[in-house]
């Protein structure tokens, strides 16, 4: 039984891929090649697997798969990859057995890596872009060898060469997303559009039933966005006002600090929650699972402004298996793999020409509007900058947590 299941996933997947590729191209029997290069071994032998019935070799995407061996330890955000990919598929395709541990915030990640000073045993870590420079500075991550990541060319140039790492020497985009909120319209009957609406609802009909993201920049950012202040402000007066409101007036209404509210929304624990688009997209599935009515729930992208965050693959300093780490990053950039991951976690993986990829590989993708944003929406997004104000925001969250429990 288990054996079958294990084999089913990749077969099913391969079949789906070739069928869709066939439908798209029409021209038969061109065959697309996945190149298996035994990377790191002295003789650079390359294995080529022919898959007939597909013409995707000419579509401009690179599909190199480097194999590796041993175990690969990834330290990442909760539920952040398709379990098939980090499980059976990584085993059978890359030849590595993956171990995945989870952290809840970038600060958690940095503390864990700093505490072991380059001996944490993790290979891959997934910090949010703006945190990359301080991790470089503290010596927590090592340089990438982009020649081992040929599929890097599959990324949309809009998501490479970011301010925090202009030459992608240390980081490669894993996926990006934004922040908004989710509410039960049978309990919160007013129409909600902005962060201000969210704050009002939390303090009135949703009081004691709302959940906040458990990271300092997001928690404070919500108030800045609602009040038309750039969340990267370092102005003491802004930060004081933020602290005064969030700690003194707002904290008492909060039910939980929870960065992944989807399951608890389905349990019925909250009637409104702030969250990241991908997790809230999964909430619809879990609510249906629990026998609730997904149509009762509304997703709102934060406005007038909200964030654009990008999580990046980095290799931890002292990584025991850097070869496998490169192989994994490269493999996750193969378009078919990337879209499979996207269908699971619900975040944009930043592939070039995304629209046609989705049309070909995942035509029945549900709730795409929670993954892909319109240019007008993207225009309101702000990217976090790491400033000395971050310490202050961490303090504000800390105090708000204490206050919320009072």
């Amino acid at each position, binding site marked *: 039984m288990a054996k*079958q299941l294990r084999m089913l996933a990749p077969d099913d997947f391969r079949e789906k891929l070739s069928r869709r590729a066939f439908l798209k191209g029409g021209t038969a029997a061109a065959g697309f090649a996945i190149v298996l290069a035994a990377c790191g071994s002295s003789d650079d032998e390359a294995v080529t697997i022919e898959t007939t019935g597909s013409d995707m070799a000419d579509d401009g995407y690179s599909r190199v798969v480097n194999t590796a061996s041993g175990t690969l330890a990834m330290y990442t955000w909760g*539920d952040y990859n398709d379990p098939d990919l980090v499980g059976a598929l990584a085993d059978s395709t890359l030849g590595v057995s993956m171990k995945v*541990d989870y952290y809840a915030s970038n600060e958690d990640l940095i*503390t864990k890596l*700093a505490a072991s000073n380059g001996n944490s*045993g993790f290979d891959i870590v997934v910090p949010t872009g703006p945190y990359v420079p301080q991790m470089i500075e503290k010596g927590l991550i090592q340089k990438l060898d982009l020649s081992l990541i040929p599929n890097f060319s599959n990324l949309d140039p809009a998501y490479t060469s970011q301010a925090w790492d202009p030459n992608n020497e240390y980081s490669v985009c894993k996926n990006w997303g934004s922040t908004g909120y989710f509410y039960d319209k049978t309990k919160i009957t007013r129409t909600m559009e902005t962060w201000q609406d969210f704050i009002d609802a939390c303090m009135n009909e949703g009081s004691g039933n709302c959940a906040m993201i458990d990271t300092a920049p997001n928690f404070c950012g919500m108030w800045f966005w609602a009040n038309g202040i750039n969340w990267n402000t370092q102005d003491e007066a802004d930060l004081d006002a933020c602290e005064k409101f969030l700690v003194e007036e707002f904290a008492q209404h909060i039910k939980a600090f929870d960065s992944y509210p989807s399951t608890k929304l389905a349990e019925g624990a909250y009637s409104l929650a702030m969250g990241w688009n991908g997790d809230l997209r999964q909430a619809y599935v879990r609510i249906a699972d629990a026998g609730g009515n997904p149509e009762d729930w509304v997703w709102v992208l934060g406005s007038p402004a909200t964030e654009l965050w990008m999580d990046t693959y980095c290799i931890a300093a002292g990584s025991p298996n850097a070869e496998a780490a490169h192989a994994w990053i490269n493999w996750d950039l193969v378009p078919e793999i990337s879209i499979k991951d996207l269908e699971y976690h619900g975040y944009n993986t930043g592939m070039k020409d995304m629209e046609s990829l989705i049309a070909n590989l995942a035509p029945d993708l549900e709730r795409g509007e929670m993954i892909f944003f319109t240019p007008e929406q993207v225009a309101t997004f702000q990217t976090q900058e790491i400033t000395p104000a971050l310490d202050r925001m961490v303090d504000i969250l800390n105090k708000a*947590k*204490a206050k919320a429990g009072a």
Partner: protein
Amino acid sequence: MTATVAATTRRRWRAPKYALALPSIIWYTVFFAAPIAFIVFYSFGTKDTSKLLPVDLTNLSTASYKEVFDETFFTTFRATLRISITATLLCLVIGLPVAYFAAFKVSEKWKAIVLAAVVVPSFTSFLIRTVAWRIPLAPNGTLSKFLKDLSLIGENGIQILETSLAVQIAIVYNYLGFMILPLFVALDRIDSRMREASKDLGAGRVATFFGVTLPLAGPGIIAGVLLTFIPMCGDYVTATVLGGAKGNMIGAMIASQFSGAQNWPLGSAMAVLMIAAVLLTLVVGTVIVWVIPRIVGLGEPLVQRWRRAMRARQVQRGPRAGFVVGDSVLHRLLGVWTSLVLVFLFIPIGLVFLHSFNRGGSFTIWSNAVSIKWWGELFDGAQVLNTAIRFAVFIGAGFLAKWMLSRRQMLGSRTSSWLITSVVVLAFVINGLVTSWYAKIFDYAGIGDAIRNSFMAAFGATVIAVLIGGMSGVALARRPGRWATVFMGLVFLILVTPEIMDAIALATWFPRIQDLPIVGHIFTNGWGPFNGGINKLWVGQSMYASAVVTLIVRARLAGLDESLEQAAADLGAPPGRAFRQITLPLIASAMIAGGLLSFALCLDNAVISTLISEAGSTTFPVALLGATRSTIKPFWGVGAVSLFVVTMTSLWFLVVILRRSGDSASNIAATLTGS
């Protein structure tokens, strides 16, 4: 003869009295006293996130303490103490009738069954049991729907999750067993003649209970209160999983200072004040316990006069039938109560088992469909089948061999009784070699590795705990002196230090010692098949466990006359031989019991392990705690059930061996509880 022996011993160099405790003393100094001293030091530092270790020690101040006494943080302190004290009292009130029932009202056989039923739930993962409380308490859950249909509750369902009430319920649940066991042992040891004498002298049932039974059970009550109250104060898991923002406890808040907030000085100050608060509460508790009987004693003459008056009136009126509770009614009431408590203890276990067969994508949300999907996800069916067949073949062959050999009378009864045991061990080893120590039976490597790491860490920590704890236990019982007072103080401090304090102390200690020549190398690069992370876990988990073993071994030896060892010495046995042939057999059962207890504690350790574990050493509770941050997949339930089955099997196996070696089941249970 005696004189010459005495002369030779006098001439020889005598080791200091604390020689046997030396390993413990070094261990505790390096991995307990020093790290904790640093925490105290950090608490006077200032936060500096630009450094790798984010604390500036050049500029000392008491600002962090001021901040803790600030209203916002202090409320969490008060809430933690309130929850812990309430929960301890509730455990006592709920547990006492159960222990009383098991000790006095049932047959030997039922005693063992009740005890086993109390112990068994604590061998399922602490964390998954806590998570399982989310199932019945969910506002959209089955229970909520049922209560809503009966119109017993409002439209919003049960509103308990993410409040301190949820934490209160789960914390009572999680620690109830630790209260019942010591109570039972204490009650069970009371000489029944005392109670009979009390009744013969005319005391009623209530008077006997309060005047004789309860005071005699005092040590058990104290042990139970210590075993529950202290871990509760530092509890971090229950509040994290169930408490939300409202049910926050100090343990979770301290941990977050060291992870998210990177505010070591504030976290350290909170931890120092927490220990102070725990000690203060214990002192106040002791004073109350000491004062109340004396205050009551002051009123004794009045009470006596009142009683005499009552009795005189009763004699005039004749007995009041309505107020006399018959023995059988009391018996039945206690029985019902015990059953209810046992049901309470088993509710989460049952839910974990049920939800491991959930078809949906989340452990806590029941999809209304039973399926073995997640068992298939976790296990490689063919490998499991192969392994099971190999076990069956081996055991079958063992039984066959036993039958044939016994027919031909080629085998002594002693050898034959060990045959099956050896066959099981052999099958275990051979299967282990074939499946690379059972890693291959898991399809999803994450949980398989976590379970294996848990066993590896718990086993190593237990070996350390039994060795150093056993040695210092012997030293304490046989070579007491002034050092023993100091050492017992240290052991007591280890026992009363909430786990979260050890956790942060060690987590901040390892980066400091990693550049030391040999010690640092062990914790960064590991040795042999064990990586640095596993070594760190051994240190962290062995701390509390070795203190427990020390106490158990000491208690065991203190109860035994030293004359046996003296006789051996008189007969010319050198100290080493006397130890090996006399002392060791005497303490063997205590060491095994201590080992079992520490193994169970270590296997379930989440707090220390989470803060010090690394990629290659993630244990089951650590991995599960990580998973609770987002959605818990049902295969965690599958993993927990498997872990439970493996633990129970190995325990059963050990109990069988212990019984073969002649220790009775009730002795095993008694030593297990540390008395």
